[in-house]
């Protein structure tokens, strides 16, 4: 049992993806926000945009860095976390819940199976 919730999958680029009713929720991990430092801005796609697995779908900025956010799966963005505009620090304070970024309707559900489990991800980050 590690620090990363077991109810979701993880990517090598430090994103998490959690299944919900008819869609998936995407965010970044506790490890990632710690590496980035204080988040100052999150650039997210618009509702209706198509994202592609492995490709950048947004940018996350701290004072000194700006990193791409990589899509864990392909699909259509159906909702975006508007709170992050005023409160980007939610990503630091609560990366797994209030720090969620986008909700996606998946094009190919089997893509999820390729991703890391919580244990595999913990192993990768040495947590």
């Amino acid at each position, binding site marked *: 049992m590690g620090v990363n919730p077991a109810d979701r999958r993880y990517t090598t680029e430090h994103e998490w993806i959690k299944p919900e009713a008819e869609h998936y929720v995407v965010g970044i991990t506790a490890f990632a926000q710690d590496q980035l430092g204080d988040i*100052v*801005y999150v650039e997210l796609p618009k509702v209706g945009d198509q994202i592609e697995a492995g490709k950048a779908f947004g*940018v996350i*900025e*701290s*004072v*000194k*860095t*700006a990193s791409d956010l990589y899509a864990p799966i392909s699909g259509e963005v159906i909702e975006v976390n508007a709170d992050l505009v005023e409160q980007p620090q939610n990503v630091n304070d609560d990366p797994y819940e209030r720090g969620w970024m986008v909700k996606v309707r998946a094009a190919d559900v089997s893509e999820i199976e390729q991703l890391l489990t919580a244990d595999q991800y913990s192993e990768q980050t040495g947590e």
Partner: protein
Amino acid sequence: MNFTQLTPDDRQAMLGTVGVERVEQLFADVPAESRFPKLELPPALTEFEVGRYMAQLAAENASVKDWPCFIGGGAYNHYSPSAVGHIMGQPQFYTAYTPYQPEVSQGTLQASFEFQSLVCELLGMDVSNDSVYDGASAVGEAVLMAQRITRRERVVLAGSVHPQWREVVHSYLAARDVEVVTSSVSMGDTIEEERLVDLLDDTTACVVVQQPDVFGHVRDLNGLADAVHARGALLIIGVADPTSLGLVKPPGEWGADIATAEGQPLGLPLQFGGPWAGLMACKSEYLRQLPGRISGQTTDADGRRGFVLTLQAREQHIRREKATSNICTSQTLLAIGVTAYLSLLGPTGLREVARQSHAKAVYAANAIDALPGYRALTPRPFYNEFLVQTPLTTADVRHRLVERHILAGVPLFPEFDRTLLLAFTEQNTRADIDRLVSALSEMSV
């Protein structure tokens, strides 16, 4: 002559510390066949000699201090109050570095913040950066910015935008397969331009206009922003002589999404082309796509107000290939000069500069219009510049005026070769203008 400060003893001791006998040994990594080449340069001069040499070369140039200047075309001979030069000449400004260590750069950062504030007010926009290279590259950067925001590529340029600004836009886009459409301009009884809205389509990222345009015409831009926005594109308005903004509605009030200006007329010397400062500002929703350096207000742990470079994550040193632009330097020292100029003039002074520049231009236009063989082509109203139809070629007229020690006209419109673009500022006396008119009247076919 050089400015090193090591004594022979210093060198000896330092070589010893480093563990070599001769300084040449420090260059062992340089391939032997390329080492210590002969530089074929003229012999070194002392400070006294180089001062004399450069002064001789400088004296070969006609300066606008000695000859009346009626040349505009993107740079204008306005008066710069003495204090502007002295403020820019303070060594703690001009020998300072980029304010990456804010605790020891509060002078620079606060001045930049003040510059940004004044630019917003002058251009009527929400946010500004700390300057880009010049008015032309500001337009280029604005186009790139509009493409990023709209995720479209096509660009529509008004033909009445300065030809060099348009060339710069083309250069910035040269490496990508982008359609750039320019409205055509024709010279009949007056200057007519193809309608810009007719050139819009749903792949257009932006429309670029100059206000007043390159022929000096103050355009009625009412409705343009709405038409451009209706097609999902952005409106970019560029200003060549921002003293015009003492009289003319600023880009923000015309609905511009991005506004640019050449800062030179705001107190900066002509310097045969630079350095100057490009002003660039936008609506608040586009802030994160604005290139260049930006100074922001904040506090330290004791609650003291201070300023820092902010939003740097967009810039080249962090984003690298994904940066908003490759821009690194800004024109900070010149931006400080512009800040000083606008402060010294204040609103009354700037309005007066604009009123006088305009009045002188109208006086001249009326007089030239009355000369046989000449006609002012720029539709009224114009600000301080207008295009005149001439009986001789541009080159001829300019040359004959040079013989009378008068500087006028620009070589910017080879396609309209019997014209002369004339600009006027508060520095042109009535007597000088009368001399110009008299000189023109003596030229006929």
